[in-house]
């Protein structure tokens, strides 16, 4: 199995190579001169020339790609045009917020999504099942930022229970930290929760018809035990897949959520960089986030083998 894990790890190298080249090629996606676009509308010829040299845009394309690849292999993501700080430092400063936000959102969506999916499948056709399905399709259609504003309006502005926006690091105390993350994490989790509930229900429906489930019930086992130990365990593969794929959804949602709640995370960093056309920062974030996505899906692949010993690559 370890050889297998190693093989999968090696297989991620070409994927990351494609990501790196694609992220670089983004600079050249428009027909114009990237230095002119990055410099903005009010730049002088000198500014443009400086940016061109600084980003190595005066080199031939293949040399630029080579330089870029050799830099990122050494862990050098370049420096921000706007702040002059290394991109890796900027990402390091902002990563914690985004990690907490996505982690909490992930916990909420799995913690609620899986149980309601199981219950809906168990009571198929009941009002509970219908309610879960209505939630699944409407939650998936919900504009994240709009939901965020609704929650802010209800729980922060009208009720006054939670802060409207902002962020406090965990060092500032547990409650200030948590209270600033509850609404953002809830906002971010809804789309994902809907997806997980729907997937869990579908997967459970496939398993509940099996003979061994009937046998387990016939033996007089408690429904809870049958649902969790016998059914959910066997229905968990597609759910785990969705959890891996859904990470991309969470990161995308985090960009928007951080903007609504003024959280200083990677999403804010990207949006600010886009407004300022700070291209090294944009490239750095894209690369790091995609790398994390590839790694998470690698972990999911390994989890497959653990959850279902029949799977051998």
């Amino acid at each position, binding site marked *: 199995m370890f050889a297998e894990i190693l093989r999968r790890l090696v297989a991620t190298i070409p994927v990351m190579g*494609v990501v790196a080249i*694609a992220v670089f090629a983004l600079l050249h996606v428009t027909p114009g001169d990237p230095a002119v676009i990055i410099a903005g509308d009010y730049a002088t010829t000198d500014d443009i020339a400086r940016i061109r040299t600084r980003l190595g845009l005066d080199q031939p394309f293949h040399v630029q790609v080579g330089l870029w690849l050799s830099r990122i292999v050494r862990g050098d993501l370049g420096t921000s045009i706007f702040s002059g700080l290394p991109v890796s430092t900027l990402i390091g400063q902002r990563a914690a917020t985004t990690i907490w936000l996505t982690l909490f959102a992930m916990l909420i969506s799995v913690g609620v999504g899986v149980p309601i999916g199981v219950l809906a499948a168990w009571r198929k056709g009941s009002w509970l099942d219908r309610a879960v399905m209505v939630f699944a399709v409407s939650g998936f*259609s919900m504009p994240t930022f709009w939901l965020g504003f609704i929650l802010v309006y209800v729980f922060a502005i009208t009720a006054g229970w939670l802060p409207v926006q902002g962020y406090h690091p965990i060092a500032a105390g547990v409650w200030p930290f948590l209270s600033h993350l509850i609404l953002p994490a809830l906002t971010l989790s809804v789309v994902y929760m809907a997806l997980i509930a729907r997937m869990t229900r579908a997967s459970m429906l496939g398993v509940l018809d099996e003979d061994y489930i009937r046998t387990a019930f016939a033996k007089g086992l408690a429904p809870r035990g049958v649902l969790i130990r016998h059914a959910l365990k066997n229905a968990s593969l597609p759910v785990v897949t969705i959890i891996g794929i859904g990470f991309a959804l969470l990161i995308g949602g985090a960009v928007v959520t951080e903007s609504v709640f003024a959280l200083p995370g990677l999403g804010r960093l990207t949006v600010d960089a*886009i407004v300022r056309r700070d291209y090294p920062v944009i490239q750095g974030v894209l690369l790091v986030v*995609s790398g994390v996505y590839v790694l998470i899906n690698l972990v999911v692949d390994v989890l497959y083998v653990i959850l279902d010993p029949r799977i051998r690559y």
Partner: protein
Amino acid sequence: MAVRATDAGTLAAEATVARPAARARRLLARQPTFAAGLAVLFAVLAVGVFAPLWWTGDPLQMKPAQRLQQPSAERWFGSDHFGRDVYTRTVYGARVSLLVGAAVSLVSLALGTTLGLVIGFYRRLDTVMMRVMDGLMAIPAILLALALMAMMRGSVRNVIIALVIPEIPRVIRLVRASVLSLREHTMVEAARALGVGTPRILLRYILPALVAPLIVQATYIGASAILFEAYLSFLGAGTPPHIPSWGNIMAEGKTYVQLAFWIILFPGLFLALTVLAINLVGDGLRDLLNVRG
């Protein structure tokens, strides 16, 4: 999906119904959410296309004396910080959303299907291209679209381009998977034995089998494109600010959440309902056309 005996029975009964209108009515009755989605979608379409007819004014007209007014009999959705009518702007905003949704799903399907057919059929291309697709799909779609917008001038056309590019690898993957399974099908083998050329096999034998899954996919792409357009505009990297789009109206309203919540409430409601309607239509079509997944 397994066809149950009852389904087979009703299907047989339906086949004997001569009038298509009656058949359509029966299908709609069996699929209430599909019917509801379709109704809302047509309503939004009517709202957008005939925007000037719905008792709207000029979406750009500013009345500084009437800033941030509450919803009332004259101003149904209130007014924004420039005194513009939120109702009028929301109605006109439907145009941008529907245009972007339709354009993104049509363009990405056309390009993705063409590429997917070719890649799926030529084994040599396949291995390399699928690694490339895996790489492109590892970049979260919204981040890729944002980065693309950073390099382009803000315009509706560029928003469409920025949303099509992340979508293409996903369509390619869907088409390729179907091509791979259909390629081994007996009918393709038979056609090959008769000397039918590859382009003809792709167009006459494989493409028709893809129509149903692609129609379903088109609705989901349209729904997510409408959401993404609003996200991009909300983040200030989408449709240019002078065009009233739902994302733009809400972006301008976000400073006034505490004072004038209606600026965000109404366009968001339209956005959520439209996306929900399209997703319901997609789910309905998936069941009706018997597409799995």
